[in-house]
């Protein structure tokens, strides 16, 4: 007993010492730190395991090309497990190390970090999630959704459905199927407002967490309600289950539109492969496929090191979103350094950099964003890709729907 206690004490002391040494490591010059939060292990790991390596790859690519004005970009990725307390700890750690901007991961995390971003003057991005009200740059000065928020997605979905159904929605039936959590509910106010102006019939179908059992809802939709179009706003495993059940009940998937988190190759693979999902429409806020120049450059970079292309690229939907998020940060830093004469930028300068982003499309991977001090969403652009054969084929160019209504709602929100 006594011996073992002594051993334990030594062990504990060793662990503690190791930890604090690690904490104080690394503070090089000629380096710009961007903090990244990520979820490779929590409930959104389906996205995180592809998204986060893409962020790393893009930063490596930029550094391989010489960085920005001779400054290397260091992206420090920490896993927040989709929980709020670790997100706070990681944010403080990055802040202490001197980050100029941060990639946030998760809606509650974005909400919890927002007051800190404002206090510390550090811009953060929440692409495709987070509260839609954050598009309002006047009220959320340091939070940048950059990609289409749930409100823009809802509006774009209705516009797409309208075009599909011949330009008039009067008397048409639309089913809105959603994951029963705040994010799932978020597009509803916009859709309901559009229901009033466009005159379509709307019914909502909630899918309770964890979203793997929805046969009742699917039966209700396909056999009883028989809508002209289905808009599905689902997360995690739910989209694949939805695709499978829709297919099995004989409903044409060409009349189903999945919003941005129900739209990756991984969902289609989990549903049983491409054959199962023929015709399924997916909404995207970044380009899909590996044909974009930046993807090719990353493949070339891997090839030079004698490595096969990154595995995540097979799920190009999430991979390209990772590139989009990282690229916008680096573009913001670049613009900040152009403005301040090539010095390492401050958070405030990077914020200004974000607010000047336009004409930055990476060959079509990024939408024609125009981020301004009042519009932190940059326009709310999306594209629709349809499952045809064994890939996602572009169905529309970048578009946004009912922008006036969305902006009005954003400005009215607190």
């Amino acid at each position: 007993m006594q011996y073992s206690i002594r051993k334990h004490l030594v062990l504990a002391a060793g662990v503690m010492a190791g930890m604090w040494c690690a904490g104080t490591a690394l503070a090089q010059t000629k380096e710009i730190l961007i903090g990244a939060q990520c979820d490779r292990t929590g409930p959104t790991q389906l996205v995180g395991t592809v998204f986060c390596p893409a962020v790393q790859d893009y930063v490596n690519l930029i550094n391989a090309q010489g960085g920005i004005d001779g400054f290397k970009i260091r992206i420090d990725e920490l896993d927040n497990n989709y929980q709020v307390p670790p997100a706070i700890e990681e944010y403080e750690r990055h802040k202490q190390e001197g980050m100029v901007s941060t990639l946030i991961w998760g809606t509650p995390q974005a909400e919890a970090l927002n007051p800190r971003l404002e206090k510390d003057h550090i811009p953060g991005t929440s692409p495709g999630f987070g509260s839609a009200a954050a598009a309002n740059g006047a009220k959320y000065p340091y939070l940048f959704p950059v990609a289409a928020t749930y409100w823009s997605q809802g509006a774009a979905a209705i516009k797409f459905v309208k075009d599909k159904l011949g330009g008039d929605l009067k008397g048409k039936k639309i089913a809105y199927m959603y994951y029963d959590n705040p994010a799932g509910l978020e597009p509803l106010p916009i859709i309901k407002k559009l229901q009033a102006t466009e005159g379509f019939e709307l019914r909502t179908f909630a899918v309770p967490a964890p979203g793997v059992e929805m046969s009742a809802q699917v039966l209700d939709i396909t056999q009883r309600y028989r809508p002209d179009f289905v808009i599905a706003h689902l997360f995690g495993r739910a989209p694949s289950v939805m695709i499978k059940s829709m297919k099995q009940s004989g409903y044409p998937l060409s009349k189903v539109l999945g919003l941005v988190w129900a739209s990756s190759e991984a969902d289609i693979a989990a549903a049983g492969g491409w054959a199962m999902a023929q015709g399924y429409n997916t909404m995207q806020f970044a380009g899909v496929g590996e044909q974009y120049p930046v993807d090719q450059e990353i493949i070339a970079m891997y090839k030079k090191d004698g490595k096969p292309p990154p595995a995540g690229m097979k799920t190009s939907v999430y991979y390209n979103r990772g590139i989009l998020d990282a690229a916008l940060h680096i573009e913001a830093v670049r613009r900040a350094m152009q403005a301040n004469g090539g010095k390492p930028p401050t958070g405030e300068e990077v914020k200004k950099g974000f607010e000047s982003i336009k004409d930055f499309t990476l060959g079509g991977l990024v939408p024609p964003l125009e981020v301004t001090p009042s519009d932190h969403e940059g326009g709310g652009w999306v594209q629709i890709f349809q499952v045809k054969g064994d890939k996602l084929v572009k169905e529309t160019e970048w578009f946004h729907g009912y922008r006036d209504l969305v902006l009005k709602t954003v400005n009215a929100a607190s």
Partner: protein
Amino acid sequence: MFYRESGIFKTSYAADMAVLPLPGTRWLLAALAALFIVVAPATLDEYTLSVLNLILIAVVGAIGLNILVGYTDQVSIGHGAFMSVGAYTAANLITRLDAPFWIAVPAGGLMAALIGVVVGIPSLRIKGLYLAISTLAAQLIIEWVINHTAWVSGGTQASIQVPPPSVFGTKLVGAWQIYLFLMFFVVLAIVAAQNLIRSRIGRAFIAIRDQDIAAEIIGIDIFRYKLLAFAISSFYAGVTGVLYTYYLGIANYEQFQLDVSINFLAMVIIGGLGSTLGPIFGAVFVTLLPIVSRRALEFVGGFFVERADLANYVPSLRLAIFGGLIIFFLVVEPEGLNRLWRNIRTWFRAWPFSF
């Protein structure tokens, strides 16, 4: 531990009943208080304080859960939901009525206590795993209700932003200010719990834990005391929720889901059931372990791969280490960290002549 424990003679009943009977303990505690209340906020940087703040909040919740699980032997995996009850009560009071913290904090606690009592009713009929499942149901029901009642949750996003607390007209925004604010409640929580357990109520809880039928026979009203245990424990949980809300500046239901309930249960079990020190150890352990293990991995991993590549390995390895260490500590000492601490103390008490 490093002071004399023998030869202290009590000459009055008051001295005999004191919370801290040994002068050495009193001095030690005074030193610790000075360290954590004066020295720490004055010297530590913002990052370290932010970690300490997370620990402080966790301590309040863990102490509260321990009253229920450790002292009364009633399991609850609904404490995450009780925290959300406290959080939303406070958030609504603060945003709608401009309630100051000294109203918001107890109000959040009381509302959680009320809900806790309702959830505790099945405990009169069922025990152990069955009770755990019924509290699990409570967790899911409360989550659903908050999520679907816009009046409570503040709209579809189910999140309410809250301004920082203000004390004597000063808004607490700095890390050290919040630290002291949280520390105040932690001290209150510890003192209250320690005294509660020494009181008639606490003794009744322990009697119920040890053998409920026997307790009933000697005249303890099981109905009343089981519900009281639920109420007190949920009060602590509600206060924890309010403190989270103040600290994060937002009440959001996704912060209080099932995994939070389980985390708190893990704190109490790892720390050691049925003591006040145990849950404190547990809260420190469970909050720090992911941070420490990540730093250790980054440090060790730095020798093998580049720092940028580390991100590919650290998250999953960290989870494995987290789980592994919990098993390790529970195997080494099933009665928790508190028992381990006592063993160390006993060993030192006789050191260097430990025969």
